[in-house]
């Protein structure tokens, strides 16, 4: 069974049909790319998948479970996590706390347990600390666990955002332009890291990216979006050599 199966997804803003008849099928453990010119509706698709917008047509199946039209909280619990095009960290909180907030729905104790530091509180907090530090070690952030997130350099903020998304224990990870604002060297490191995340966490990843080097380097399959509709889909090399894709997006 596919990890993500989207059929005929659509949404309108006023008179504008932002996304129309969008479909995608992502197998487990796949690295999938979503490309297209600016304004094609790529981020809108992410917002539809994560419940920020409610689709007015179509269906979304995550690992066989219908999550169409669910609220963002439910979708997060069902197992979709994302990062943002413009980094959205909890800037006044420590790096460690950023990751621990991500585990919010997996380690529960009552308000009173939190105030009176009951054994359950201690047990859950210790577990969260342990798991969060493991994640931070993977992303090479462990030595900065106590730093405020806003004081991290740009590249590390990107990594922390991915670490936080993984802390929600997702089945599917959505990355919105992870290489934006990175130089070629950083992009190279990012590619290694995305591959590593896929293998290490056995993750399924869908990413939006404009950097064709990254896309052709790591994505196994691509969907190309233009004016809210799917223009081409298939194996990466096929899509990138598709004449329509070249005219609409890549340029001669």
């Amino acid at each position, binding site marked *: 069974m596919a990890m993500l199966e989207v059929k005929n997804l659509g949404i309108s803003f006023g008179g504008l049909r932002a996304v129309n008849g969008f479909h995608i099928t992502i197998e487990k453990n796949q690295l999938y790319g979503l490309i297209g010119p600016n304004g094609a509706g790529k981020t809108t698709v992410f917002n539809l998948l994560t419940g920020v917008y409610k689709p007015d047509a179509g269906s979304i199946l995550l690992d066989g479970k219908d999550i169409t039209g669910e609220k963002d909280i439910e979708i997060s619990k069902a197992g979709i*996590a994302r990062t943002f095009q413009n980094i*959205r960290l909890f*800037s*006044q*909180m420590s790096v460690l706390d950023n990751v621990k907030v991500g585990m*919010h729905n997996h380690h529960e*104790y009552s308000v009173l347990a*939190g105030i009176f530091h009951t054994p359950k509180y201690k047990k859950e907090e210790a577990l969260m600390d342990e798991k969060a530090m493991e994640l931070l070690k993977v992303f090479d952030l462990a030595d900065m666990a106590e730093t405020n997130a806003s004081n991290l350099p740009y590249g590390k903020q990107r990594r922390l955002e991915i670490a*936080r998304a993984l802390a929600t224990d997702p089945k599917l990870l959505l990355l919105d332009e992870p290489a934006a604002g990175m130089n070629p060297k950083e992009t190279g490191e990012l590619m290694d890291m995305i591959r590593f995340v896929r293998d290490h966490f056995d993750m399924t990843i869908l990413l939006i990216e404009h950097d064709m080097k990254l896309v052709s380097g790591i994505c196994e399959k691509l969907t190309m979006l233009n004016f809210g509709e799917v223009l081409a889909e298939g194996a990466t090399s096929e899509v990138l050599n598709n004449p329509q894709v070249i005219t609409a997006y890549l340029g001669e």
Partner: protein
Amino acid sequence: MKKMMTKKAKQNAITYGIVIIGFLAMQLLSATGHMSSSLSGLLIPFCYYVILAVSLNLVVGVLGELSLGHAGFMCVGAFSSVFFTKCMENVITNSVIRFIIALIIGAVIAAIFGVLIGIPVLRLKGDYLAIVTLAFGEIIKNLVNVLYIGRDGNGFHFSMKDSLSLGMEPDGQVIVNGPQGITGIPKDATFAIGVILVLITLFIVLRLVDSRDGRAIQSIRDNRIAAESIGINVTKYKLMAFSVSAGLAGIGGALYAHNLSTLSATPKNFGYNMSIMILVYVVLGGIGNIRGSVIAPIVLNLVLDYFLRKMQMLGNNVVLQFLSDNRMLVYAIVLIVIMLFSWSPKMIEWRERVFHKKAKEEA
């Protein structure tokens, strides 16, 4: 890991320590007879100002929303607890037990008001939320001003018109008498109880901030969209912060009311001025800085008190009159100075220079 936990615990212990040392210092002063009468009159106000500032900091600093209706919740706590005390004056004669129950009642009812007002109001953000909470604070104050409650052999009577329309038997007693409020309140509040309440407030707020729920509340402050994307229930946690803050303000109000013989809702004690004054304490102590909210009300009041007494000694009645009439002016100036201090580029530059120097020395 261990090291960081102890660091946080150490910071919190310092905050509790400041309160306890302050308490012991005051006890020492009064035991040795060095306590001036104006200072001894300020001891219980210190306690409720700190409680109010710490609880407001939970909304302003930790949740990151501006609420200007804090005095309204204080008013609810004050009136509900004093109402209980008046009703039970002859039933429960032990003043400490009676006061503890009154405090719990004040806190719970204020927290319920926090939820009821929070549900519609917390859909708003920023300036809009500030305006609406301000309005609700004024509404509560004005409602209390037209509330008449009496008790006779048949039970309780309510009216929103006047005390005559209560229609009581001749033996009936008016408990809440509209603008005149509640009179003849037993003075149950003591400095020791006040300090214990401050410690309880600190305990609740500091522990809450450092828990799973506190992290969720802070994540909403820092980035609501990201908080939603990782499955935080934004409405639930906004309401939690708001109602806990309201409940603690209710405790502050109850302490305030039991320090008076007559309680009435005037613009001065439960109006806009009070909410702003608490906000000044929070801003002066540092938004989100709980320890600052403990220190700021005390320092600001001590300075003002000292200044007023100096003027009195100098016989400068014009300045004295002006200052005691225009306390709010002083607070406004304090607010403006803090704003300049924290946001003006020149000041930021200066602070960074000093701060970095310190950091280098430490390293």
